[in-house]
């Protein structure tokens, strides 16, 4: 602030009330400053050295509570009153006399609005928009043209959606081919080649069934999310008149659930509403109605057993909304990009049925909006039943993107970056380790890169780079823990103390020491990565160093696995169970000894409710395959829908062989029943009953009940009733319950109900001995 403007405040008669406060010059000048201390304002107010008590009181009366630095700011409503009284000319007059702080964006924007030179909203940065938001209130009805608060807020929300993408792509360069592939898939801009252009013409009119969703895969740090972020930002730049709608879901964020995909739809509508203000009324209308209906149903049915929504209940919404908004949907003239980032997190978190529900949902929506373009971003290629993906695999960085990546990691000199790329290639881990080394060893000359890498055995490049980086960790204890400690996946002070301390040579580590090492490890970004539930050692680094550590006499890798098994096996949460199994397998335990049956992979999938990849399922032994399929059908019965039933049936048909007395028989027959393939169901039941050991009451009851149910679904009540009568075991629930024999209770209860229901169907009185009072109805 400069002391150019002189005004003799001492001669001003200060008003006692607020009614005329806005004519006071102290307040008028204060209104132009975003924040000020009393001395700062005194410094720019000419004619006096110090404000009188009354003047200070006046400022205090019309200001918000001062912040910790004793800075005041005039309240919005009072500031507006001051400006309204001044009018446009009055404000311009003041602007000519005072000098505003050029580093204060709000002041600068205020001046720009008053002088009519403010940039349009589309050209404002986020800080400028935030300033405009305040100014729109201050200058309301003052004669100055300002955007409405709602317009500014809308624009702020738009930029906030893009902010994470902008942060990701700060140093983005290269990846031209991958961007072109992504662009061809989305079918939005002119194709990258003539052939693709011809193919693209067909693709524009097809949906999910003909055009599989895209799966971008690559190792951690390869820039998968960044590629998509760059693509989205590019679309906005190139098509400012016609924007590409996009929806972004990041499964790395806790709380994003797919159990009810309609909730994802609500989120998507919110995002689209921000991107397309002109249509926001429709988006918000659908969103609000959907939200209300889902909430109403949820609150009415707190007992709901199948929490995952089914295709059929979603269909009701589709029909309703496509009818109401038929006109709007018909004019969707562009693709809608839907990104599912960190898909591996969802695979870890959600069960098969939830993921299937998500795929079904996307398929259903693509029927309504054929140009829906789902893009999944994950670490590994996956297949889910009939769902196939169009893959884009990001291997290493190309030279341009590698140099940009190194720049982001602190290697600013492009020549140095080029030398690094030449020596270690585009592998992100190599680049990270080299960047770390360059910083730690203060390397500035590309020739030094040559020197360092020349001595290194190329097959052990990553190990050697890590070792060399470790030499620079200041805290020796931390370095001792880091390698071989990287053998464990999760890391926290408890694990350092209980699992790693002894094998790393610490005989009496206490909690404090473990806590300190953990804090130090946390600082080593080349070793650690953040996960949704804390931090862990980098997976790529573990993979790179595993053989070195486990085979080296220097490290006690085996002991670490032993400790980890001991540590995790005492815990009961699913994650700890998974860690126990992981360390058991890694130390080479026989799968049988860790409660495995024939195939460890399928066992894990089944135990943890994870969908196994098709190739693993196909390779599985017959017994494990049957156990896996049995678990899958149970899951579908609980959470699936007609489509998943049909898909499972097709999958089962591909492998016809069954072990004698297979447990899969019952589930398979049930699946056929639910699909109304009654003949098939009966065939399976007959075969299963023949194979079932006579003493296996449970299995026999289940199968008999299923046979009865098949007759009932065919409305052949006589046959159903005969089947019950021929199996007295189905009628005896009450006896079992009374005798406290509660084994097989579920089947017995069902048997009792089936018997009573069918007796009724046949118009019979229920026996007096079995809870009676019944008479023939009608």
């Amino acid at each position: 602030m400069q002391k150019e403007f002189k005004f003799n405040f001492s001669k001003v008669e200060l008003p006692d009330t607020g009614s005329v406060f806005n004519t006071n010059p102290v307040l008028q000048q204060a209104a132009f400053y975003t924040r000020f201390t009393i001395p700062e304002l005194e410094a720019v107010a000419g004619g006096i050295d110090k404000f009188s008590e009354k003047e200070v009181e006046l400022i205090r009366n019309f200001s918000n509570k001062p912040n910790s630095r004793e800075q005041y700011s005039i309240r919005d409503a009072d500031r507006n009153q001051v400006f309204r009284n001044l009018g446009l000319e009055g404000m311009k007059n003041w602007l000519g006399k005072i000098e505003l702080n050029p580093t204060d964006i709000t002041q600068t924007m205020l001046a720009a609005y008053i002088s009519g030179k403010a940039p349009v909203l589309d050209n404002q940065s986020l800080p400028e928009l935030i300033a405009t938001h305040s100014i729109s209130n201050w200058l309301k009805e003052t004669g100055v043209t300002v955007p409405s608060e709602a317009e500014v807020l809308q624009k702020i929300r738009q930029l906030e959606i893009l902010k994470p993408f902008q942060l990701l792509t700060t140093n983005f360069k290269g990846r031209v081919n991958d961007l072109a592939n992504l662009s061809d898939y989305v079918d939005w801009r002119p194709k990258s080649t003539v052939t693709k252009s011809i193919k693209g013409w067909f693709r524009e009119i097809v949906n999910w069934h003909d055009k599989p969703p895209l799966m971008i895969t690559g190792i951690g740090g390869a820039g998968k999310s960044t590629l998509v972020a760059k693509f989205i930002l590019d679309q906005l730049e190139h098509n400012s008149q016609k924007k590409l709608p996009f929806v972004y879901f990041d499964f790395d964020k806790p709380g994003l659930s797919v159990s009810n995909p309609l909730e994802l739809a609500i989120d998507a509508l919110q995002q689209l509403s921000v991107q397309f203000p002109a249509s926001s009324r429709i988006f918000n209308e659908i969103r609000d109605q959907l939200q209300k209906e889902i909430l109403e149903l949820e609150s009415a049915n707190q007992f709901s057993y199948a929490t995952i929504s089914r295709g059929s209940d979603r269909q009701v919404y589709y029909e309703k909304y496509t009818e109401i908004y038929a006109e709007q949907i018909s004019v969707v003239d562009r693709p809608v990009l839907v990104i599912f980032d960190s898909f591996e997190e969802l695979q870890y978190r959600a069960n098969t049925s939830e993921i299937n529900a998500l795929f079904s949902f996307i398929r259903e929506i693509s029927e309504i909006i054929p140009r829906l373009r789902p893009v999944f971003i994950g670490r590994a290629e996956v297949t889910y039943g009939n769902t196939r993906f169009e893959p884009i695999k990001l291997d290493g960085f190309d030279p341009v993107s590698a140099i940009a990546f190194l720049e982001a990691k602190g290697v600013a000199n492009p020549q140095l970056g080029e030398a690094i790329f030449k020596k270690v290639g585009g592998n992100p881990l190599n680049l990270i380790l080299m960047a770390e080394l360059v910083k730690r060893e203060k390397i500035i000359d590309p020739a030094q890169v040559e020197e360092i890498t020349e001595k290194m055995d190329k097959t052990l490049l990553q190990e050697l780079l890590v070792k060399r980086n470790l030499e620079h960790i200041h805290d020796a204890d931390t370095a001792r823990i880091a390698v071989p400690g990287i053998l464990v996946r999760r890391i926290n002070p408890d694990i350092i103390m209980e699992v790693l301390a002894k094998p790393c040579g610490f005989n009496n580590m206490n909690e404090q020491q473990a806590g300190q090492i953990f804090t130090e490890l946390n600082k080593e970004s080349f070793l650690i990565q953040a996960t949704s539930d804390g931090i862990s050692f980098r997976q790529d680094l573990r993979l790179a160093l595993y053989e070195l550590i486990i085979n080296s006499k220097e490290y006690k890798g085996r002991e670490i696995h032993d400790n980890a098994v001991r540590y995790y096996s005492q815990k009961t949460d699913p994650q700890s169970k998974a860690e126990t199994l992981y360390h058991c397998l890694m130390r080479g335990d026989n799968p049988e000894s860790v409660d495995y049956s024939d195939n460890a992979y399928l066992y894990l999938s089944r135990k943890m409710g994870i969908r196994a990849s098709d190739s693993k399922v196909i390779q599985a032994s017959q017994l494990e395959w049957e156990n896996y399929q049995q678990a899958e059908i149970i899951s579908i019965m609980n959470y699936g829908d007609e489509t998943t039933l049909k898909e499972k049936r097709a999958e089962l048909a591909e492998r016809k062989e069954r072990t004698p007395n297979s447990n899969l028989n019952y589930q398979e027959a049930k699946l056929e029943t639910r699909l109304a393939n009654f003949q098939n169901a009966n065939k399976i039941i007959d075969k299963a009953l023949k194979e079932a050991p006579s003493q296996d009451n449970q299995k026999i009851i289940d199968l008999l009940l299923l046979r009865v149910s098949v007759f009932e679904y065919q409305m052949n009540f006589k046959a159903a009733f005969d089947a019950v009568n021929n199996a007295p075991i189905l009628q005896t629930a009450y006896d079992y319950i009374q005798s406290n024999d509660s084994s097989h209770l579920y089947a017995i209860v069902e048997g009792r109900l089936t018997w009573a229901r069918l007796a009724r169907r046949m118009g019979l009185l229920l026996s007096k001995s079995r809870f009676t009072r019944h008479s023939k109805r009608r």
Partner: protein
Amino acid sequence: MKGQGLSSLLPFPYKTYAERLYGRFQDGISFRDLFVEMDRSFSDAELFMSLYKETTSGVKTKSDLERLLRDRYNLNLKDICEPGVLEVNLIDVVRFIEMADNRSEFRDRKSK
């Protein structure tokens, strides 16, 4: 088995029926009470068939069935039966209706 959650041992659609009738924790309700209640609601074949015809008259698709349940009982299909084709789900729904339509608790809900 008195006390809680008897309905967890019941198959669809009876578990939904029991929970709506008695709440999640069926305090003081025994299997005897439950069976008596349910036995009373079962229809004979003729009545069941007429209920089936009545229900199917306006139901041509799974969505129609979902809408019927939602409008009349504030329920989704997944609340009363396992997944299946329309032909099978229709029977599941009629089984639920034969129980529910005899109870004022469900009629009250329908009128809401």
